[in-house]
């Protein structure tokens, strides 16, 4: 039969080659074809074709199964060998895994933190549709942005904008309120007020009570579980009455405490209808809206922009230039810093800083791994040679080594999770976070760790894999020592790199601490030492009696002075609109404002540069007067202190009677803003007592007793001014602590690496060392020789790190209006530290080798 005329069926052939395409397996097709023709001869074309199909359909599953089985066997082999390798080189393996774990753990931690900061308020359902409505107000020459708007607007919104699903008012009526139930009586700072709609918009899980009605009626309230525990113990609070200042509220629900990453923090929320009439009409508070799914946010934003004009209540208001704008809920934390912002904003800069630090640590750990594995690989050249001889292809070797690297990285990752779980508490205390183990198991963290582990596994494993598999079997088996010039160079570069990064981190930490210290101890222009501030809020008002109250406290011999004011220096200052009389339009500013009594200036030692200030003895006949600081002069359009004296503010009769030298009333992070003080005799809420620090505890008891004598049944709230003032630097302190921790970790890993490397190098050079000693070199000189080499590497690292550190720290320092210059000492200290540590690490190994 003419073979050309009949061909074996193409389709089954194609199927076969699709699943089994290696050269060897294709021989089966060859056999099939050959036999095919015989059948065509014997039984005819059709039988042959059917037979062919039958063969393919029966053979393929077997072949595929077999192939899979073979791969599995190979994989198991590699696994066995890898594990055995780890066993054999226990020392190295432990160091490697430890270093890598710490690196991965740090990375994960930073991932957690970054995720935390970027996900404020994402736990609410449909949070992408929730916005805060903010106000932009032009007055005089400036535009001011406010985070709170007149609460009445909220009611109008609901009526006129169909795009809105809900409108919620959520704010704090006063910074401290006295809360009382039976004998539990404390000042609380997180009591909020909210519309019932808030329970529908925001994710507030109820433990007890009905969310659909809890805040419907006036004078109802809900508590967090912790708060309920504090006041009610194990009693069920539902239905009971708790009092706020003097008003009673019925508890209608107990809820879970909100997570830390939310703007809407609260311990207790009262229903909005409980608000008093005065506030109802005039109060400004944060207003949140939830858009309907189909609404277009841009279109809506344009609409609401014109609200102040469109819905103005009077003819003159219609001329306003105020506009409203929207802020997406999630973005507020990191990017919003408006006036009346309920919480100080987070700083995205720190988020970036930590991401960079994380990358650094990862680099150190990764480099470590690469270094140690290439070092170790020298020992395995024999194995590689042998494998090649028995027929392993280069590709197989690459897979084997890559596989080992991934295995190691995987073990390190698992270990990293363990480490993190164990040390989570410690991190929480340093970083003031509240991470729990459950956070570690979130899907994106796990996804992140998988990415990290694969990335590191591949990158770190690539060098050894490619490097090792290229060994020529002959030269290796002959037993020669692989010189691998290129290998040594890379390894040295890695050590240099590690130390460069570590030293940069050390320098960074030192500088941060220096800056922090500087800020804390910088001369503030007023005296905050030895002062206790006592609050008089809520029902414990002192009103016009302030002088008498002061005198009561002054009775004690250790209390040397007293002054009253409306607020506390260093805390969030109230800002008011102030203008030179008659110039409200052109020169109105929103400035920091404080009401003080006559003793204030002398108690705080504030310097007056022009005008009379006040006589040092209190002079009750002096009329009200304003004091402004130097920065305010220019803000109000005057050119000199002399020009400012005597001018009026607020269209009032009082005039400016003194100019104060600029002082840092709200910390030294920012430049000094204008400050206006009004000499007054009303609205004081804080009395500052200057004390003699001897017998401190006795003095404090006196204060407590005197207070309860004057104000029965009111809880006392007092604090040391210097401690309170320093709280502002909390975020910088936190950064410093975190930085320190990571620096130590980074340095530790680098030293681990150095340790391993040193011991390996020492091992390698036993021959050389032996020869040197025979030729008469002493142990010491040999040690010195080895040390010198490493010192050279670290030195190079130092040289690289200095410019890097200088550059980045300069950028960071620019965030502060008052800053140190980086200075020599940090750089030298860091270099010195690194050298010492490196030398110590190496000495041990060298000593062992040289003996």
């Amino acid at each position, binding site marked *: 039969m003419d073979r050309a005329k009949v061909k074996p069926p193409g389709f089954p052939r194609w199927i076969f080659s699709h699943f089994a395409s290696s050269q*060897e397996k*294709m*021989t*089966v097709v060859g056999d099939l*074809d050959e*036999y095919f023709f015989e059948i065509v001869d014997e039984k005819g074309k059709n039988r042959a074709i059917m037979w062919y199909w039958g063969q393919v359909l029966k*053979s393929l599953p077997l072949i595929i199964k*077999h192939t899979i089985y073979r791969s599995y066997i190979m994989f198991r082999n590699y696994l066995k060998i890898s594990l055995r390798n780890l066993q054999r080189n226990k020392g190295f393996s432990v160091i490697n895994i430890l270093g890598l774990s710490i690196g991965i753990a740090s990375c994960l931690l930073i991932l957690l933190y970054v995720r935390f900061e970027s996900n404020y308020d994402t736990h609410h359902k449909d949070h992408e549709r929730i916005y805060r409505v903010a106000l932009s107000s032009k007055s005089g020459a400036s535009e001011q942005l406010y985070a709170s708007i007149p609460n009445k607007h909220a009611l109008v919104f609901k009526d006129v904008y169909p795009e809105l699903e809900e409108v919620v008012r959520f704010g704090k009526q006063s910074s401290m309120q006295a809360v009382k139930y039976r004998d539990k009586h404390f000042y609380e700072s997180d009591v909020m007020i909210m519309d019932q709609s808030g329970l529908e918009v925001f994710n507030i899980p109820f433990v007890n009570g009905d969310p659909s009605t809890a805040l419907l009626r006036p004078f109802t309230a809900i508590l967090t579980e912790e708060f309920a525990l504090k006041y009610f113990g194990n009693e069920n609070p539902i239905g009971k009455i708790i009092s706020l200042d003097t008003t009673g509220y019925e508890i209608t629900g107990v809820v879970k405490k909100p997570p830390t990453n939310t703007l809407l923090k609260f311990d207790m929320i009262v229903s909005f209808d409980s608000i008093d009439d005065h506030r109802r009409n005039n109060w400004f508070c944060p207003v949140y809206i939830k858009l309907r799914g189909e609404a277009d946010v841009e279109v809506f934003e344009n609409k609401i922009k014109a609200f102040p004009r469109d819905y103005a209540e009077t003819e003159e208001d219609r001329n306003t230039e105020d506009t409203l704008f929207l802020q997406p809920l999630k973005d507020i934390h990191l990017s919003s810093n408006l006036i009346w912002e309920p919480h100080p904003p987070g700083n995205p800069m720190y988020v970036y800083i930590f991401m960079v630090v994380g990358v650094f640590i990862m680099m150190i750990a990764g480099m470590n791994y690469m270094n140690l594995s290439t070092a170790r690989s020298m020992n395995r050249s024999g194995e590689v040679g042998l494998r090649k001889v028995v027929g392993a292809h280069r590709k197989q070797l690459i897979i084997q080594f890559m596989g080992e690297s991934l295995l190691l990285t995987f073990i390190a990752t698992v270990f990293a999770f363990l480490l993190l779980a164990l040390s989570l508490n410690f991190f929480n205390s340093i970083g003031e976070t509240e991470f729990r183990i459950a956070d570690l198991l979130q899907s994106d963290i796990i996804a992140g760790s998988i990415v990290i582990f694969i990335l590191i596994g591949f990158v770190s494993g690539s060098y050894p894999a490619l490097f090792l598999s290229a060994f020529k079997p002959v030269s290796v088996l002959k037993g020669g020592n692989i010189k691998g010039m290129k290998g040594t160079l890379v390894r040295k570069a890695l050590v240099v790199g590690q130390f460069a990064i570590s030293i940069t981190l050390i320098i960074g930490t030192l500088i941060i601490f220096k800056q922090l210290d500087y800020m804390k101890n910088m001369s503030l222009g007023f005296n905050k030492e030895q002062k206790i501030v006592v609050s008089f809020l809520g029902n414990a008002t002192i009103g016009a009696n302030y002088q008498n109250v002061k005198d009561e406290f002054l009775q004690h011999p250790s209390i040397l002075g007293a002054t009253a004011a409306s607020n506390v220096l260093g805390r969030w200052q109230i800002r008011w609109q102030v203008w030179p009389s008659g110039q409200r339009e052109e020169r109105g500013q929103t400035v920091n404002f404080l009401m003080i009594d006559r003793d204030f200036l002398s108690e705080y030692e504030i310097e007056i540069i022009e005008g009379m200030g006040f006589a040092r003895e209190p002079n009750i006949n002096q009329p009200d007067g304003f004091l402004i600081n130097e920065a305010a002069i220019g803000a109000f359009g005057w050119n000199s202190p002399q020009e400012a004296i005597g001018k009026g503010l607020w269209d009032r009769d009082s005039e400016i009677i003194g100019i104060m030298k600029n002082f840092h009333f709200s910390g030294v992070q920012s430049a000094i803003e204008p400050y206006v003080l009004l000499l007054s005799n009303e609205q004081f809420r804080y009395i500052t007592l200057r004390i003699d620090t001897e017998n401190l505890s006795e003095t404090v008891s006196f204060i407590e007793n005197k207070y309860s004598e004057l104000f029965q049944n009111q809880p006392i709230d007092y604090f040391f001014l210097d401690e309170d003032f320093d709280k502002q630097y909390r975020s910088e302190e936190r950064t410093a602590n975190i930085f320190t921790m990571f620096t130590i970790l980074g340095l530790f890993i680098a030293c681990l690496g150095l340790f391993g490397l040193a011991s390996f190098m020492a091992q390698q050079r036993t021959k050389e060392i032996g020869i040197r000693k025979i030729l008469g070199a002493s142990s010491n000189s040999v040690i010195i020789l080895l040390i010198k080499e490493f010192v050279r590497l670290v030195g190079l690292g130092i040289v690289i790190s200095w410019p890097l550190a200088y550059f980045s720290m300069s950028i960071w320092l620019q965030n502060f209006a008052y800053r140190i210059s980086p200075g020599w000492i940090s750089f030298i200290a860091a270099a010195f530290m690194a050298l010492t540590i490196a030398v110590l690490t190496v000495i041990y190994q060298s000593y062992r080798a040289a003996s």
Partner: protein
Amino acid sequence: MRFLSRADEILLLAVLRLKENAYGVPIVKEVEKRTGKKITFGGLWVQMDNLCKKGYITKTIADPTPERGGRGKIYYTLTHKGEKALEQVRELNSSLWEDIPGSLKKPISD
């Protein structure tokens, strides 16, 4: 060394008999001739690969020829170990069947 399985034995003997001609098609034909069973080519390849990994035979891949549509052949040869295994089975067989009369119905003891 473990005893060969029946299937192994059959295949190895086929390889032995076919000498230089021991590749896919003839092996399948030989096995069918001796046992009456038809095996598939894919299945044959799998079993031969197993035997190869156990060390009883070696594979040699020959160049492709046009009659086979451009695919090569695999020639199998018995190794020393394979030979010994066959010997072992032969002895085992004779030892097992020693003194068993031709028709199994007759009593063993004489």
